[in-house]
């Protein structure tokens, strides 16, 4: 992976509810990421097929916060 691509993690299904509750948002409100996104394709090599609706955690550097964790929902195509 290129150094500019931040870390992507697949959230286990059983933890999804906990995280959404913590964030205080519904799954549909989260930003999206395509299943066809190269990062998801790469992640699938590790985690097996990732179906739409799963949540991805992205850990990236932030100018204001140091390290920021953000979440995306996988969508089709």
């Amino acid at each position: 992976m290129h150094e500019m691509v931040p870390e992507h993690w697949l959230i286990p299904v059983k933890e999804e509810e906990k995280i959404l509750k913590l964030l205080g948002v519904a799954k549909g409100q989260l930003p999206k990421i395509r299943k066809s996104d190269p990062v998801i394709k790469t992640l699938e090599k590790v985690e097996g097929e990732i179906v739409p609706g799963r949540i991805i955690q992205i850990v990236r550097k932030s100018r204001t916060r140091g390290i920021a964790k953000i979440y995306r929902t996988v969508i089709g195509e």
Partner: protein
Amino acid sequence: MKVEISKGIEELKFALLSPEEIRRMSSVKVITPDTYDDDGYPIEKGLMDPSMGVIEPGLKCKTCGGKVDQCPGHFGHIELAMPVVHIGFIKEIYSILSSTCSNCGRIKLPEEKLKEYFLRIQDTNNRLSDIEYDDIVSEVESDASEVVICPHCHFENQKVALDKPTTFREEGKKLTPKEIRERFEKIQKDDLPLIGLDPKVARPEWMILTVFPVPPVNVRPTITLETGERSEDDLTHKLVDVIRINQRLRENRDQGSPQLIIEDLWDLLQYHVTTYFDNQTPGTPPARHRSGRSLKTLVQRLKGKEGRFRSNLSGKRVNFSARTVISPEPFLSINQVGVPAKAARELTVTETVTQHNFEKLKELIKNGPGKEEEVYRPGVNYVYRADGSRIKISDKNASEVAEKMELGWQVERQLEDGDIVLFNRQPSLHRMSMMAHEVKVLPYRTFRFNLAVCAPYNADFDGDEMNLHVLQSQEARAEAEILMKVQENFLSPRFGGPIMGAIHDHITALFLLTYRNPLIPLEAGLHIMSYVNVSHTPEPVEIDGKKYFRGRDIFSLILPEGVNLEFRGKLGDKSLDPNGTEGTIRIEDSKLVNGAIDENAIGQSKGALLDYVLRKYGNAEGAKFLDNLTRLAAGAISYTGFSTGIDDEDVPGEAKAQLREVGNESVQKVEKLIENYKAGLIGMEPGKTLEDTLESMVMKVLSQAREKSSEIASHYLGMDNSTVIMARSGARANMMNLAQMAGIIGQQSIRGQRQHRGYTNRTLPHFEKGDIGAYARGFVSSSYKEGLNPTEYFFHATGGREGLVDIAVRTSRSGYMQRRLINALEDLKVSEDGRVLDTENSVIQLEYGEDGTDPSRSFEGESVNVNYLIKEMFGNKYGGKK
């Protein structure tokens, strides 16, 4: 999982109106060219038939029964005696005529070819864009119009020519709209997609009008002049012409008049219909009003800057607003705006009469509409009774209405001191471009405000104009006061520091007041202090029996209680103040103990003292400090006086000699370098060619020349020099500008390089070919004061132009970029729990800015300034560096 997406307009489709549809949507068949009868009633089946809607209040629409504000208006129609072409479709008609067979109506391309095109179009519907579809259509047209023999019926077609604006000819013979229509009727439905029409919504023959839609009356209202005379809309005038000629044409046709007369009338009808749509059709004389003014018909209503789109949809005008030239007023608070009395009498605030404002409003009404007087007293322009009826207040009825006033009435009161208004200067590039101010009604004709507020508006007084909006509701006023007031916008969200501060003469004045703590005669000191509200005067000092104030003591008067601060001022820079101690500004217990107040203390966006006051005491105190500061500065500088002129750049003869020496020396050094280069004595620097190496060495020598000249100039120009005072205090300009005026202007460059373009192997014909010496490549050894020689002047102009071009390019680029950003982000909002959401409640950021910090409430972008807190808690000793 299903992701929900809110609804939006996906597609907009334009279609043609069929004659049947025009009849179906018509509420009346208009047959009379007249509008109203002698009694002023609309004539039945005339152009003002009440079936097409109503424009007079009280009347009811014959079609829907609605009154003026309920009836949307309804179309009527005119049955044309003979068909005419629609000027808006002239291009389409022409291309269809040329690409179809006049005998069988097919597109003049062989069946296989058509099939091929069809397949491509079907592709279009699936994947390709509208643009590509249009491309295919024009390809079909250009292919088919070349063909003479129809591949379907083998008919020999003739070339069709368009005789502008509306006449079609086939081999010189005129094609009547009727003939065109008959041809178009033959075109097969299946062929339509290839000529760009959707068969579901359009037929080519509908581009030839047989029925004419008459727009509703509220689209073309009758205007009643003050004299009682009625004046019809331009569209109505044009419709009258259409109906009149249409009638005559029908009569002549029915009577079997000679063909020539019928053709003339037909052409005339065509002319009227054409100008009804577009009165600026090329090749057609515009239809004119009796007065000679050309009529404003449909296209003219929409087109151009004054058209519906640019003037009414993209731009709107608002009430309760004013615009005028701005000028400065240092005696106003930064939170105030001076409004001319003339404007204040026109701008109103509507107040509802309650028990609490009853007496006040009564008095205001008694003032009447107001007249010009020494002291402005607000009056009242209109009063609304509880039933909504309006009374205009005049000097005559003022006291009468005041007595009759009741609770619940509404009073349109004129602007008074203390009203909250919004003040704005375009281009509104950031949120500080529109701030809330308190009104102060003043004489004369300009808006006025404190000079510290120039920065957020980016205003100056070389003729700038600004807009003012009067708020109309309590909610708006409260919101503006809490969020938009000038003092609430001290900290810029761009860099988290104060954007407002002292400028120009404020800095000069307070610098002069505090530099080396001058002795100020008692009287002068009192004069200065009279500009601000002070509770006491400082203790005077006595020297030789005369009493003086110390400048720093006077300055200390405006500091809030409890200021303890030490920081480096501009003079802390050793190059500006080689052996002075004025660079360390120390304030102990709100007393200026040491240092000269300068840009670093009170200047915009970098004033440490201002920043300190703002953060420690809050916005209100900060505003007060800045208000006092500007007043004190006005007092101080009006006592000392301050001016600068060209003789400020006079340097003594020995300095001139030194400067000349520096110039000559550098030029010689360059010469030497070039000699060495030619002799091959210069080694390459890494990453550079030999020429580049030489260039960089030359540039270095020449920039040293300017630095040296700057040193010499600084040496001979001291603190008794106004320009130096301004440069050192940070009020305006810098020492480099000074050195350029007094000493050497220096190298003129383009894109960071010495000037080298121009003629073959030389920049100007004044130099020899191959000359790469200092002067031949844009070095200017003259000063602005002495003046430049012609070649220097030329190079200076070239260098200057680069700056201008850069600015022009940068502003347009960044403006466009900013517009795009604003459009993309405009309806995002921060929810109460700190998330950034869009209008569909989708998350954009889980926490605003990822750290949840509002930059306009931050310390230079940081949530907390730890150094400041430590200093405040434990005193200066333990505090880190500021």
